[in-house]
Every structure is written in structure tokens, then in C-alpha cells.
């Protein structure tokens, strides 16, 4: 009941945000939503199944560029299929899944940190392709992203749209789309984690041999989770492209993959809420620092030399990762749970957590 109310309250607030906040905050919020979708995906893989991936940025790039390719009109030397944009978005997610599937013979056989090293190769492969497969990717300059068009509503600044005296530009419109996609992504992942696959994934993470002996086909599960996590990354990539309105190749590099790992470590490994909390922390921080760079000590304006807001944010959440690993094993979400437990314990001691007389280990 308490949980349901928090959810409904959160959704209600999120629905009213575009009517009150300016473009900057909306854009920061949309980046966060896209990051949250991607973070849920990597948390399924790394947090819940124990499979490290440094290649998440590659699958974001696949999603973003595949959307552009499917949706764009062919123009000059740039290729495009000019498909309806919702179809292009769905196909982009599927293509990201196929890309993950092509890697799954490796993803199914390698475990933990070894997979992390193997996926590192995807980053370099991705960067090479993005810069050199010009007809598809536009090379160094990237490509313009065709706006999404859903049931006659175009997610762009034109045609003009005014709701309750608030002009609805691209960010306001995308806000609702992003919110819907994030909610579906979170709902799906929660179902997976709570159900039969989630139990198998957690057991593979904690006791691989036990999982196999209990009848879980470990390799097949690892490959399946890898594909699913790639599809989440693909969806995050499509969202990101729509918000950016332009795809830029160097964005999808190593640092983006590390950002995603930082998100799930800071937020809390293995859960949907942890991924979302971490995404808020990691993708909001640089925006906040950029916004208030003139008021903050030690942070310089971008381009003026000194520590730029983006660098300052990286230093800050690098420190946050270290702090979480040392002091908060469950991440920010674990901290919240601990506080809640401490509060409820003061009210009433849960029977199952009290030391029983037969505990001698």
C-alpha cells in the first residue's frame, strides 16, 4: 500500500513537471530517463547475473544509429530506409538485440570479469564503425535524428502545440514518451527479476555450479540475459538520439560504458530501483555542475581551462563509487532500505531477524 502510494505520487509529480520546469531541466530529466533505461539493462546483466560488460555503450550506439538509419530519408551519400518512426524505433531495439545475440556465443561462455574484458573489444569495434561506415553513420559529424511521429503527434518543435498555456516543444513532448518507455522498461525488468528467470540469474551470480545442478542451463541463460540487456541499451540509445536530435560518434565510447557501471554500483546492484537511483545520480550531476559552474568553487566554465563541469562530475562520482564500495554494499538503495529497516525495527522487531536460540554458527 505504502509502495503503491509512492509510485502513484512519483508518477503524478513526473506528469506535471513539463508544465513548470524550463527546457534545461527537462533535457537533464530526459537524459536521466534514457540513462535509467540503459542502467536497468546493465543491472540485469551485471547486477543480477554477475556478468560484467564494458560494451554497453556499443549497444546504445547500435540502437541510436539503427533508429536513424531506419527512419531517415536517403540524402546525398547518407543511406536511410524512411520507415515510419515507431517501426524504426522497434526495429532499432531488435537490431541491438541481434547485435547482442551475435556476441552471445562469447557472452554465454565467459563469466564475470572475463566477459568484461571481451566486451571491451566491442567499444573499439563500435568506434571504428561509427567513424568509418559513413553512409550509415555520417562519420565524424554524425547524423541528424528524424523526430518521432506517433499517432499524428510529431515529437519536434513544429507544428506548435500549446497545452494549458504552456508551449509544448520537443522536450515537453518527449518527456511523456520517455516516461512511458521508462515505466514499461522498469515493469518488464521487475517481472523478469521476480520470476523464474530472476531466480536463475541470481543463482548463476552467487553459485554457478549450484545453478547448473538445479537444472538451469547456465550458458543459455547468460546469453539470453546478454541479449535482453543489449535490447535495453538499444532502447536507451533510441531515446538518447531523440533527445539529442543528433548522433555523435565519440559520445558512445569507453567513458559512457563506465558511466553505466558507476550508475548501478552507486544506485544498487541487481535491482530496478537501484539502476534508476544510480542513473539519476550519475547523469544529473554533470548537468547540475554545468548549470551552476559559475557559483561553484574549483569548477571552471566549459572551455576556459581548469576543471570542466563534466570532469568535476566524473571525479565526484568516481569518489562516490569508491565510497559506496567501501561503506554501502547495497548502494544508495541499500542505504534507503537500511534506514527504513532501522525505523521499523524501532517500532516492532521483525520476528525473522531476531537471533534465534539455535543460531550458533
Amino acid at each position: 500500500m505504502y509502495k503503491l502510494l509512492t509510485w502513484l505520487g512519483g508518477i503524478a509529480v513526473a506528469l506535471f513537471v513539463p508544465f513548470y520546469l524550463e527546457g534545461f531541466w527537462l533535457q537533464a530529466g530526459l537524459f536521466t530517463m534514457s540513462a535509467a533505461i540503459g542502467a536497468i539493462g546493465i543491472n540485469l546483466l551485471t547486477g543480477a547475473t554477475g556478468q560484467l560488460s564494458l560494451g554497453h555503450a556499443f549497444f546504445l550506439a547500435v540502437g541510436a544509429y539503427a533508429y536513424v538509419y531506419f527512419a531517415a530519408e536517403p540524402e546525398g551519400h547518407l543511406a536511410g530506409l524512411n520507415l515510419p518512426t515507431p517501426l524504426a524505433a522497434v526495429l532499432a531495439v531488435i537490431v541491438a538485440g541481434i547485435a547482442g545475440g551475435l556476441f552471445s556465443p562469447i557472452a554465454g561462455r565467459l563469466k564475470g570479469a572475463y566477459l568484461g574484458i571481451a566486451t571491451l573489444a566491442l567499444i573499439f569495434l563500435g568506434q571504428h564503425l561509427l567513424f568509418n561506415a559513413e553512409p550509415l553513420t555520417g562519420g565524424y559529424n554524425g547524423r541528424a535524428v528524424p523526430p518521432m511521429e506517433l499517432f499524428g503527434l510529431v515529437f519536434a518543435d513544429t507544428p506548435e502545440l500549446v497545452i494549458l498555456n504552456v508551449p509544448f516543444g520537443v522536450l515537453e513532448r518527449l518527456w511523456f514518451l520517455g516516461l512511458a518507455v521508462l515505466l514499461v522498461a522498469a515493469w518488464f525488468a521487475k517481472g523478469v527479476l521476480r520470476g523464474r528467470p530472476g531466480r536463475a540469474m541470481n543463482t548463476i551470480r552467487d553459485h554457478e555450479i549450484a545453478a547448473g545442478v538445479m537444472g538451469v542451463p547456465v550458458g543459455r541463460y547468460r546469453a539470453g540475459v546478454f541479449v535482453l540487456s543489449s535490447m535495453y541499451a538499444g532502447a536507451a540509445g533510441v531515446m538518447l538520439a531523440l533527445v539529442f536530435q543528433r548522433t555523435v560518434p565519440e559520445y558512445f565510447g569507453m567513458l559512457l560504458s563506465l558511466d553505466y557501471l558507476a550508475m548501478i554500483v552507486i544506485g544498487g546492484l541487481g535491482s530496478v530501483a537501484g539502476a534508476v537511483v544510480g542513473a539519476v545520480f550519475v547523469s544529473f550531476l554533470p548537468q547540475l555542475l554545468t548549470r551552476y559552474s559559475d557559483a561553484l568553487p574549483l569548477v571552471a566554465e566549459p572551455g576556459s581551462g581548469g576543471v570542466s563541469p563534466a570532469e568535476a562530475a566524473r571525479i565526484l562520482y568516481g569518489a562516490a563509487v569508491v565510497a559506496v564500495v567501501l561503506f554501502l554494499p547495497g548502494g544508495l538503495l541499500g542505504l534507503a532500505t537500511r534506514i527504513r529497516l532501522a525505523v521499523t525495527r524501532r517500532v516492532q522487531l521483525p520476528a525473522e531477524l531476531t537471533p534465534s536460540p539455535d543460531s550458533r554458527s
Partner: protein
Amino acid sequence: MTGSYQPDGTATLEVRDVTVRFAGLTALDAVSLTVEPGSVHAVIGPNGAGKSTCFNVLSGVYTAAAGSVRFGGAELTRLSTHRIAALGVARTFQNIALPPRLSVRDNLLLGRHRLTRAGFLSAGLHLPAARREAARHLARVEEIAAFVGIAGRLSAPVGLLPYGVQKRVELARALCMEPRLLLLDEPVAGMNGGERAEMAELIVAIKESLGISILLVEHDMGIVMRLADAVTVLDFGRRIAGGPPEEVQRDPAVIRAYLGAATDLEEHA
């Protein structure tokens, strides 16, 4: 009886001349044993005798270099762990292998993995079929939990439970697979007297009410003599004796393996 296949009942486990080598070290050397349907068979031996290696071959964790393991009509030596599980072979581990943060309920439901079907799509989409399946199997899980005596602990994360209870959870998880053959790797290791007696009673109850074959590795001779219908003794990877418990107990080779040769004894006396 040999190699007969009984889909609904139990089947004979036949281990023939199984050899396992780890880079020059022969952990198991042409070991043979037969577990009759519905019986309790104990494997004993000093530390390092190859008992756990034997279990790891039976459950598919290790591959045998030579020999055959037949259960019912199936040859197990070339099968992967999850395929052996699908044949109804369940096991527990010497060192508890439970995901500590999952609740007892989720751990037991994992035992139902081979009997359930919900995949990523139906679980992710919260399909009614997946929910009905979970509810149906949860009912059976609760029954088994009550049988093993952990019914009151279903919501607790396993990692917070005392050691003796965790051992029971592991046994319950194996029972949740509805096995035809149960491999128990030192079920009472590290337990105190009271817990040992309770666990022994539980194993007797499993044998009597469920009628499944049980293969047991155990150091506690009191438990072995009380539970086992037949005993196989291993030493340095070789089978040195076998037969009914009271016979094995008197076997000079067994006494030598456990206590050293008679000459050694005299020297130390």
C-alpha cells in the same frame, strides 16, 4: 533390474569403473558402485579419498576420463549438469551453495526450475500463465518446507539463517526438484548433536515417505551405520570395500585406511 527404466518410480544408479584425473593426480581410480532403487547408499572414506569428486562426476560438474555412469536408461558421463538435473538427479553441497540474499521461498522455487516453463518474455510481461504456474508450484514448495521443518522461515533471506537451518534449506531445495535420486554431500557436517539427530530423522523420513534413492557422503559413522543399507569405502581414489554396514565396519582394509596399518598402531602403542 539392471539398467531398467522406470519413468515414475526410481531407477538403479550404476557406476562402472569411473576414473577421474586432474593433471597427473588420479582422484578416482576405476570406482564402481550400484545404488538400488529406494535404498540409502553411503560413500565413506578418509579426507581426500575422492568422495566429493565422485559426487561431482555423478552430477556432471566433472567429466570422467573413463568409465560409465548409468541412471535408469541414461548415460550420465557426457551430459551437462542441467541435463542430469532434468533426469531427476538432485544434490546438496558440502559447503552450502545458496544465494544468500534470496529468500528461502525463492531458493526453494529455484528447485522447481526444471518443472516450470516461464521464460524472460512471459515473466517480463507478467503474463497470467506465468503467475498461475508460480502459484501452483508455490503450494508444493510450502508443503516441502513444512516436511523439512522450515515452513516458518519462507520469507527470510537465507544468509540470515543459522547454519543448521541453511543445511535444511539446501535439502529442501533438492527435494523441490522432485528427484528420483538424491545426492547428499555431508548433510550433518558442522552440526551439533541435536541437529544431527534431527537431520538423520529427516533423511529416514525422506526415504520412507518419498521412496527415492539416496546416495550419501558422510564422516559421521553413527549416522552412516544408522541410515545406510549399503556402504562403499574409498581410499586414495580406490574402492577398498563395500557391502552392508555391519560387514564393512569389521573389514580389516577399512580399519587400516582409517586408523593406519596394524604395525603402525603397535609402534605408536
